[in-house]
């Protein structure tokens, strides 16, 4: 049987069955509800076990804690109620759940799980008002607010990761923490999570958890030291806990079935009870069972690890054998497979990360960024696209959800044009998904960062766009977000930042740029300041990492990973096959263009003295309108994204410089640091904090997203793609995002699709000596008019999906800066390849620039 047997790759005939469509509708109506269950159980059992008194929490103690939580969770088979917004406030509504997948990450239909071990206490001031805040409110009942206020939060005041670290750090560590809290230089995310990884589901699906337990017990018996014995026993504890949770769901389903009068619903409940009694303990025997095992493991992973960037990997590969067996046996149709995946997609989106009001301004609108990867090549480099690849695409089109975040792999030398066309068609249909990744470039990048060729070929995408080998790579890809324009700022102002005044030396002096004789000397100053920012961020990351090792062992993730079983070591201690820490750099194009502007105007043409340029920046270009006009004209001042050698060379220089700066550094787990270029919403957040930059960007304006050229200065699509395709993948090992916006063209849709696929193919195939073609590309295909309408009447565009810079989001959930950034991105008409210009869009009311 061929891997692709579907005749019509679009699967247009497959529609959502009415019960699933109704459940999806309820999902969109439901506001997220804060769920205190996890936080309350973790707190209660931590108190009972005396864990708040420990100087270190051992993996076995943590495992026993999670087992108790799993055994004591409320088994929710089907949800019946949720809350929705009305002009008068929140109101409860009822709906009929029909999901074949029982259990949920919280007790709510769409819940906000709380992790007091990390940053959940940030919600404390909002307990009485969070249900009515303007930006992305959560429903929180008064009783639950009281539970959090009295029974949960007070116990964690000295015990979340940040405070544990502060209490145990040196003065230098605390100084770095203060630098982090200035929010201007970098964000270190370990106070919030590590997460950002892809567990290995294949063994749980293929062999069942009982086999894994028996393996752990056998290894425990053979282990020579107590630490390893405890580690293996920890794996046994958490997996027994997960099996117990599944059994409690089975019992709840059976009990509910006994009371159910409707024969169809009764049968559905009995089937859930039958399956959950056997899974995930035993091997999955059908496609549905495979999905069930993954879902149950996914719940457990989220019990332990915050819902930030945990990703599901190559599900079309993991599940294909079960799918094929079912189809061959006549047990499963394509339609039924799409339906099952639709239900699973809803389950995957059943939780939303907790974001306090202030965080909404930096990360507003983000989901949990649970990436799923489809397509690509297999371990030998052969085409791995199969029927499930297309079925998952169709399920994604029909469900149109923010989570999961679908990513498709394409190899220019392996895959068919028909496959690429289908991926582009899905983007036209959804307006925003899937993101497309070039296997040739990504595999080269991973091979350059320590993956074997086979491991690299088996990559999946993590969180937004970060690649890592499926189920064996513990890479905390979002460990550090670096504001690169802040390093430029330090170079421009001799180690100082305008926000803190001339007297406050932040880093060290690299000289007044006006006194530097050459552009090379200025670049060297930028390099040294960038190294300082990176060095501080890395030191902080390693410090937090060691605190995680002392207080946050992760036996559940370790049980579902390749490496820990063999090494007898938790993933947090370096147990995974592959280890790394990831850095995402924000503002690359702005800094590259700033360098080019200085090189051109100051050093090549002598059009303005450096001191004059600095004065223009201090005055936000007021009185320097001629300079602003000159900088914003790509015909007169080279800009990255126009296939201009000088501008592109500065971008390449920055990328290689940053890679060289970190790739020799080993993290606290012995893994390498990797640099990538995806920005989520931080290019808007950091942009808000920063003054004018030499590329003509005024104070408070957004930086460019990911590796996308700056908006408004790249009038033609093809040169923009060529510039990005030149960038060296081996120096972009933590992934990248190129965000493009296309005008939906009415009428000849086939022609638009042809142009779309041709543009992507050209970008991916644009290989030369140093490049392997563009690495990644993602799209928004929504008209300008529609965006403006969504600004005016958000409630009428609840389901308008957009690509931010990495993940997908609902446009209405984004903060005003981010909405503006997406609307003002350069938009191309595919038929001509030319940018379309629109009037600038004012920020929505209430938004402010810093």
């Amino acid at each position, binding site marked *: 049987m061929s891997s692709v047997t579907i005749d019509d790759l679009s699967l247009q005939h497959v529609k959502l069955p009415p019960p699933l469509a109704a459940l999806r509708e309820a999902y969109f109506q439901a506001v997220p509800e804060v769920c205190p269950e996890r936080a309350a159980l973790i707190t209660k059992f931590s108190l009972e076990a005396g864990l708040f008194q420990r100087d270190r929490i051992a993996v076995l103690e943590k495992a026993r804690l999670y087992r108790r939580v799993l055994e004591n969770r409320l088994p929710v088979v089907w949800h019946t109620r949720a809350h929705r917004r009305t002009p008068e406030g929140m109101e409860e509504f009822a709906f009929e759940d029909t999901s074949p997948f029982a259990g949920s990450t919280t007790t709510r239909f769409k819940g906000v799980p709380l992790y007091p071990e990390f940053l959940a*206490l940030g919600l*404390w*001031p909002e*307990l009485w008002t969070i249900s009515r805040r303007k930006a992305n409110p959560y429903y929180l009942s008064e009783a639950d607010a009281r539970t959090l206020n*009295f029974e949960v939060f007070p116990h964690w*005041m000295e015990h979340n990761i940040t405070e544990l670290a502060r209490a145990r750090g040196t003065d230098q560590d605390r100084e770095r923490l203060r630098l982090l809290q200035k929010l201007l230089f970098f964000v270190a995310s370990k106070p919030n999570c590590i997460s950002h990884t892809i567990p290995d589901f294949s063994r749980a699906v293929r062999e069942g958890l009982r086999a894994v337990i028996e393996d752990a017990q056998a290894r425990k018996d053979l282990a020579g030291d107590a630490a390893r014995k405890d580690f293996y026993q920890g794996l046994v504890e958490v997996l027994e806990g997960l099996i117990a949770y599944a059994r409690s769901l089975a019992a709840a389903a059976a009990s509910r079935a006994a009371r159910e009068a409707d024969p169809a619903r009764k049968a559905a409940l009995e089937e859930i009870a039958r399956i959950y009694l056997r899974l995930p303990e035993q091997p999955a025997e059908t496609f549905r069972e495979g999905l069930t095992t993954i879902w149950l493991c996914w719940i457990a992973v989220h019990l332990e690890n915050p819902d930030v960037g945990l990703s599901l990997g190559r599900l079309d590969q993991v599940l294909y054998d079960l799918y094929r067996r079912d189809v061959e046996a006549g047990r499963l149709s394509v339609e039924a497979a799409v339906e099952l995946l639709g239900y699973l997609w809803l389950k995957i989106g059943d939780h939303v990360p907790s974001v306090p009001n202030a965080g909404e301004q*930096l990360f507003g609108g983000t989901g949990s960024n649970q990436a799923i990867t489809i397509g690509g090549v297999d371990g030998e480099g052969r085409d791995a696209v199969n029927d499930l690849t297309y079925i998952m695409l169709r399920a994604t089109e029909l469900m149109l959800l923010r989570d999961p975040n679908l990513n498709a792999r394409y190899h220019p030398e392996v895959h068919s044009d028909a496959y690429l066309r289908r991926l582009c068609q899905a983007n036209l249909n959804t307006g925003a998904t899937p993101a497309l990744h070039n296997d040739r470039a990504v595999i080269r990048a991973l091979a350059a960062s320590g993956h074997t060729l086979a491991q690299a070929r088996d990559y999946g995408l993590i969180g937004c766009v970060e690649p890592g080998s499926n189920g064996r790579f513990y890479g905390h890809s979002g460990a550090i977000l670096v504001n690169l324009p802040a390093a430029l700022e330090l170079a421009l102002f001799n180690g100082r930042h305008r*926000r803190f005044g001339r007297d406050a030396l932040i880093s060290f002096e690299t000289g007044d740029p006006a006194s530097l004789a050459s552009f090379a000397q200025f670049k060297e100053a930028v390099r040294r300041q960038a190294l300082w920012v990176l060095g501080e961020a890395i030191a902080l990351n390693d410090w937090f990492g060691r605190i995680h090792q002392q207080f946050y062992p992760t036996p559940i993730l370790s049980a579902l990973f390749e490496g820990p079983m063999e090494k007898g070591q938790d993933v947090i201690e370096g147990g995974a096959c592959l280890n790394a820490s990831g850095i995402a750099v924000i503002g690359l194009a702005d800094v590259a263009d700033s360098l080019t502007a200085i090189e051109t105007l100051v050093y090549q043409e002598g059009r303005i003295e450096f001191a004059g340029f600095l004065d223009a920046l201090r005055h936000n270009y007021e009185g320097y309108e001629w300079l602003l006009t000159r900088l914003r004209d790509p015909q007169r001042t080279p800009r990255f994204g126009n296939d201009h050698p000088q501008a592109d060379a500065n971008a390449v220089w920055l990328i290689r410089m940053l890679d060289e700066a970190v790739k020799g550094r080993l993290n606290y787990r012995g893994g390498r640091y990797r640099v990538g270029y995806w920005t989520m919403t931080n290019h808007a957040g950091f942009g808000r904090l920063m003054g004018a930059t030499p590329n003509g960007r005024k104070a408070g304006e957004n930086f460019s997203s990911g590796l996308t050229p700056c908006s408004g200065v790249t009038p033609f699509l093809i040169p923009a793609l060529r510039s990005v395709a030149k960038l060296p993948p081996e120096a972009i090992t933590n992934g990248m995002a190129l965000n493009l916006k296309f005008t939906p063209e009415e009428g000849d849709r086939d022609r638009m699709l042809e142009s779309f696929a041709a543009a992507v193919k050209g970008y991916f195939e644009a290989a030369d000596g140093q490049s392997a073609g563009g690495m990644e590309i993602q799209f928004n295909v929504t008209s300008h008019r529609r965006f403006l309408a969504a600004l005016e009447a958000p409630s009428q565009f609840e389901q308008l999906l957009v690509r931010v810079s990495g993940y997908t989001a609902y446009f209405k959930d984004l903060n005003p800066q981010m909405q503006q950034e997406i609307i003002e991105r350069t938009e191309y008409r595919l038929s001509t390849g030319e940018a379309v210009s629109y009037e600038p869009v004012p920020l929505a009311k209430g938004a402010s620039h*810093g």
Partner: protein
Amino acid sequence: MASAFTRSTLGVASRVLPNRAQGWLVRSLCQPLISQLCGQLTDQFLGMLLGGMELAFALSRDYRRNIQGFRATFVYTTRDGSVARSAVFDNGKMRVHRGTLPSWQVRITFRDAPALKAFLLSDEPDSLDSILADTVETEGNLNYVYRIGFLARDLARRLGVL
């Protein structure tokens, strides 16, 4: 800054009055604070806010439950030092002192009364804006800042102004 006599009187009221009456009394005694929260803020705002909290903790059993077992010292000061108060929580009791105490868990330095109100009591709390606008600076454990933020807002809710 309540006197020993006031605290003692409120303590008696706290034991004998039903919750509803305690709530009414808190609202009555906090009228100056309510006026500040609903109208023009003055330099007296910090003193009134902390004084109102101290009074409410002394009088209201329900509000006092928020600080059972809580021990911490907060220091508040304007950048120029013209306004300075310290609030000490000690297992169900709160005392406000003029000036700054030398030992604290959290120090909050603010530009002026509107900045402090925006930081602690805004309907849309925007600590990021406060930090970015450089109107409020905090030192120490942020969880204490979150908790005092809740306590201030809980009082405002009881006063009917949140």
